[in-house]
């Protein structure tokens, strides 16, 4: 457990988003100055040694991602910051961008220097319009102060940062779909390989990094890769933002090192403060809606990439959704499959057709119109989506079904047997049948 937050220390203070504040209390672009005195290779090496893993969901080592970008290519190189933040239950990048945008800009600039890019695009989801306003205003401030633009700090390094607004598409958070969207097309994923590091934006070598990932980079350059790697468990170093939502007393974004346990994040007074209304915990989705559910006895491992994987789930985007005993798991799965059916980009048949089909069957069971064989059909459909799509969306969409049927099969069967929802909750609508659209 670290003593003080590093990424979110000042976010509650007035004016924390301004350049003046950042120069006085934040990093003040000192890490950029330091990085520009290093060779780009040394910057990449530092990030590799730090062990920084991507905060967007996959946990891939950032240094390695940057190393794959071909600096010797005669074509332009690009850095794309993934600020699409659309994974249900995830709201951490929002805080960083709204309250500490200059940390992100500094991370983008260092990243560009490391991979030989002269332009970074921050792809922000369309619904974050108020956040975009802050980013644009603060970019103008940084530009006016000579921190972005030509010959930064007299080093000969030129770099521009632009904000690119999305328009409502979960799939745009997938890195190749993000690139497609940036090119002015539908946000649909590409066949990989080639990976973006080889052929990304406009066919040029590209690195795509999450907001929180890039915000960690200035810390690594400023305080050293070894210091960073030493924060928290091995191979899971550095500060981490956790988003806790659902049936907890104090939902919010909390910063900790990755030796913090899920149980602490949910129950500890420093974090979410326990389950609301004194109810009992039913289950937890630890990494955004796309990862397997954990039961109350599976929360004592560290909330790290490796720790949550050992518990049988994934840390993903660290969107921790907490459900108490009043939650019907068929309803929850139906809710999530509505999301996936709505957001499937339609490129791969199993996902496009399968998500919609899963959602219909779940709705049928939830309304009490299901049959016993439907439960096995759910598993069969989900297993025919998993591993059969271009991107991870298919697996993500199958997960709520596979995991809830596995852990709560009795609840599904009770719906069928009794012909009604057996876990109706006061906070749900009873007048409205499960939405059929």
């Amino acid at each position, binding site marked *: 457990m670290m003593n003080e937050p590093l990424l979110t220390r000042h976010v*509650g*203070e*007035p*004016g924390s988003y301004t350049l003046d504040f950042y120069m006085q209390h934040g990093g003040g672009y000192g890490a950029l100055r330091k990085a520009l005195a290093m060779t780009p290779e040394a910057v990449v090496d530092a990030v590799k040694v730090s062990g920084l893993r991507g905060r967007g969901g996959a946990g891939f080592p950032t240094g390695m991602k940057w190393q794959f970008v071909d600096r010797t290519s005669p074509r332009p190189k690009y850095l794309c910051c993934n600020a699409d*933040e*659309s994974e*249900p*239950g*995830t*709201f951490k990048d929002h805080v960083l961008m*709204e*309250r500490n945008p200059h940390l992100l800009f500094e991370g983008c600039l260092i990243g560009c220097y490391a991979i030989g890019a002269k332009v970074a*695009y921050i792809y922000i*989801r369309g*619904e*974050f*319009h*108020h956040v975009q306003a802050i980013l644009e*205003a603060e970019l103008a401030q940084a530009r006016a102060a000579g921190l972005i633009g030509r010959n930064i700090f007299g080093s000969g390094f030129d770099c521009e940062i632009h904000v*690119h*607004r999305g*328009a*409502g*598409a*979960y799939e745009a958070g997938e890195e190749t779909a993000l690139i497609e969207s940036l*090119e*002015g097309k*539908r*946000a649909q994923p590409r066949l990989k390989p080639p990976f973006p590091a080889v052929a990304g934006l406009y066919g040029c070598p590209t690195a795509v990094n999450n907001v929180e990932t890039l915000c960690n980079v200035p810390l690594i350059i400023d305080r050293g890769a070894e210091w960073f790697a030493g924060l928290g468990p091995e191979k899971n170093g550095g500060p981490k933002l956790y*988003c806790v*939502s*659902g049936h907890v007393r104090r*939902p*919010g974004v909390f910063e900790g090192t990755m030796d913090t346990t899920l149980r602490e994040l949910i129950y500890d007074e420093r974090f979410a403060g326990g389950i609301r209304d004194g109810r009992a915990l039913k289950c937890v*989705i630890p990494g955004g*809606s796309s990862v397997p559910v954990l039961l109350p006895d599976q929360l004592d491992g560290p909330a790290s990439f490796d720790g949550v994987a050992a518990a049988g789930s994934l840390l993903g985007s660290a969107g921790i*959704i907490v*459900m108490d005993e009043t*939650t019907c798991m068929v309803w*929850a799965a139906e809710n*999530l499959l509505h*999301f996936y059916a*709505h*957001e499937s*980009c339609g490129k791969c*048949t*199993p996902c496009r*057709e*399968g998500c919609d*089909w899963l959602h*219909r069957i779940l709705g049928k069971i939830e309304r009490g119109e299901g049959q016993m064989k439907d439960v096995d*059909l759910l598993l*069969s*459909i989900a297993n*025919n989506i998993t591993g*059969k799509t271009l991107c991870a969306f298919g697996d993500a969409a199958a997960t709520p079904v596979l995991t809830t049927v596995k852990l709560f099969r009795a609840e599904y069967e009770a719906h069928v047997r009794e012909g009604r929802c057996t876990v109706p909750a006061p906070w*749900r*609508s009873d007048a*409205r049948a499960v*939405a059929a659209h």
Partner: protein
Amino acid sequence: MSFHPAMDYGRGLHRSARALPEEGPPFAYTEAHRQALESICARYPPDQRKSAILAALFLAQRQQGYLTRTAMRHVAGVLGCTAAEVEDVVSFYTMFYTRPVGTYVLQVCRTLSCALMGAERVTEALCVQLGVRPGETDVTGQFTLIEVECLGACDRAPVVGVNDEWQECQQPEDARRLVDGLKAAGTASLTGCHLRVRGDGPA
């Protein structure tokens, strides 16, 4: 043949329809919007003007309220792509409207974190308040109610987006206040984002 042996296309599982948006009146950007678009195009390589397509469509939508076929053809002409490419994009992204909408588009987040906190009942209360079903515009033409997927404000659930602003921690019993507030004072009546710390000026 479907991807799954048990899938029967004949029973209505396969739905594919292309509904052409309305033709609409003649459309051209205002001078201000045209200039704003050119400054956005300058962010991309000169041969990649199509990268500005989302921004171009947002501007057209701001100008006309929703997107028509004449607007899409105009956007295609300005960006140097085909009208089909523009329609392809419009039909994919959820924030583009191809039908008229009210002055205020109320977007109730329906995804899990908000649903756990009672978003279904918030939608219900707003339906009653406005006399509409989700997807419809009320008789005054002022309010359109839609349900949307995760807005990324799960710690302030249930959240309702109103145009480009947020109303956080909305409860069913707040429906009247939300609607009356918008009628009286517009989006200034909204809670906005809680991260805007007291004392901070508008960005």
